[in-house]
């Protein structure tokens, strides 16, 4: 679990050309969401909070911004984990898209309140790519989890 989070973090900060970077899904958010849905006991809101804190150090204007947004996303994941797990991949991806939208909106609101606004519409692009990449990402994570178990 921690290994996958570390890999996701590296994917998040890997330097990419600008157009690809805009399309880059929020890998760490997806990974943390996966664990909160599929293993709510071990990787839950605490994992989300600390992963968010790490993200804050890397890219947040204030400490706690990503932590709050990720705690909210993992809370939704943990709460609805049984309902989400039973759905086919397509419907899961819809839920993930909604969760990412809420995540990005929380960031957007906090950015605005703390006086670091980014109004560029490009910031919302990763919601779509994140939802699209969810089925393969979840499959990879499930494969990794299955092999270790």
């Amino acid at each position: 679990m921690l290994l996958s989070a570390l890999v996701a973090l590296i994917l998040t900060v890997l330097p990419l050309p600008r157009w690809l970077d805009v399309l880059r899904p929020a890998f760490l958010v997806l990974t943390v969401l996966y664990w909160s849905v599929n293993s709510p006991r071990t990787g839950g809101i605490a994992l989300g909070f600390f992963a968010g804190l790490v993200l804050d150090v890397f890219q947040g204007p204030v400490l706690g911004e990503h932590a709050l947004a990720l705690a909210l996303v993992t809370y939704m994941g943990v709460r609805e984990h049984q309902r989400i797990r039973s759905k086919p991949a397509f419907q899961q991806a819809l839920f993930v898209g909604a969760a990412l939208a809420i995540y990005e909106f929380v960031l957007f609101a906090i950015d605005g309140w703390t006086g670091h606004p980014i109004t560029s519409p490009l910031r919302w692009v990763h919601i779509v790519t994140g939802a699209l990449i969810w089925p393969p990402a979840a499959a990879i994570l499930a494969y990794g989890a299955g092999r270790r178990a």
Partner: protein
Amino acid sequence: MAAFGTGAGRPLQQRGGSPGFRFTFFAVLAVIAMYLDQRQHYLEQVRYVLQAAAYPIQLAVSSPPAAWRWLKESFQTREALQAENARLRSQQRDLDVRTMRYEALARENGELRGLRAALPPVAERWLAAEVVTVQLNSLRHRVLLNRGASNGVFRGQAVLDETGLIGQTTHVGPWSAEVILITDPEHAVPVRIERTGLRTIAVGAGDISALALPYLPANADIKEGDVLVTSGLGGVFPEGYPVARVTEVHRDAVQPLAQVRAVPLAHVDTDQEVMLVWFKSDHPAAPARATASADGGVGELKHGDAAMQPQAVTRAAASPPPAPGQRP
């Protein structure tokens, strides 16, 4: 039956509090952290430690590009190296000649100003730093340098390259420092138009190759090709460093302000090596203390004062440029 009432038998929701309780707990923690970081700046120490912890990961991520550059350099041909060597040597000679002139000019200038001796250069000390190739935030223009507090880097330090201004440091860790570039929409640098001496503020346009000058009246004397240099106001950058060249001036009859855009002179987006500079605070060209004292003073700025936030557009716009009382 035996497990009834103990932790093992309880449904998931009951362990260590319900998800709702845990979420509330962590949300409150996050909000407190944000408040302390934003309003009180109590978390500088925490951030310092976290930044130190993050640095190995950042270095690891940036190592493949760095290794690639190293490989490319080590397989350069002899001819290429010789050509570069010759170019560097001629450049060195040019610079030497120019420095000779510079000494003479500085002395002459000192005499004209009625000073007994020529002033030493305003830059006291500088340190080369490498840009760690790691993505910080795609929509903010920030870069990470491989120098930090252990090299004496402080918050709000000017960062230059050989052609112009790059930005200033915002968060300093023990071995790394985050730099806000002058093109970041949150960054504003007080500038002077070199040709006319008109002072204004250059704000990052959010585009890696553009600055905007939003506070110039439509009848201001500015045209394409004008060079902008730092004005020395604002308390961070000393006077006279090149910043940008004006590329576009739009004057609209119905708009009271001119729309001016400029390109940074420094290679803001492609630089691998930059300079961190320490300035003499008692030099006439040093960052103006007059404005700095209004919101903290240069000395306090080093300790993460609120005033050391990247100069916010609103604040910079609100404070009128004071009279240049700096020159004797």
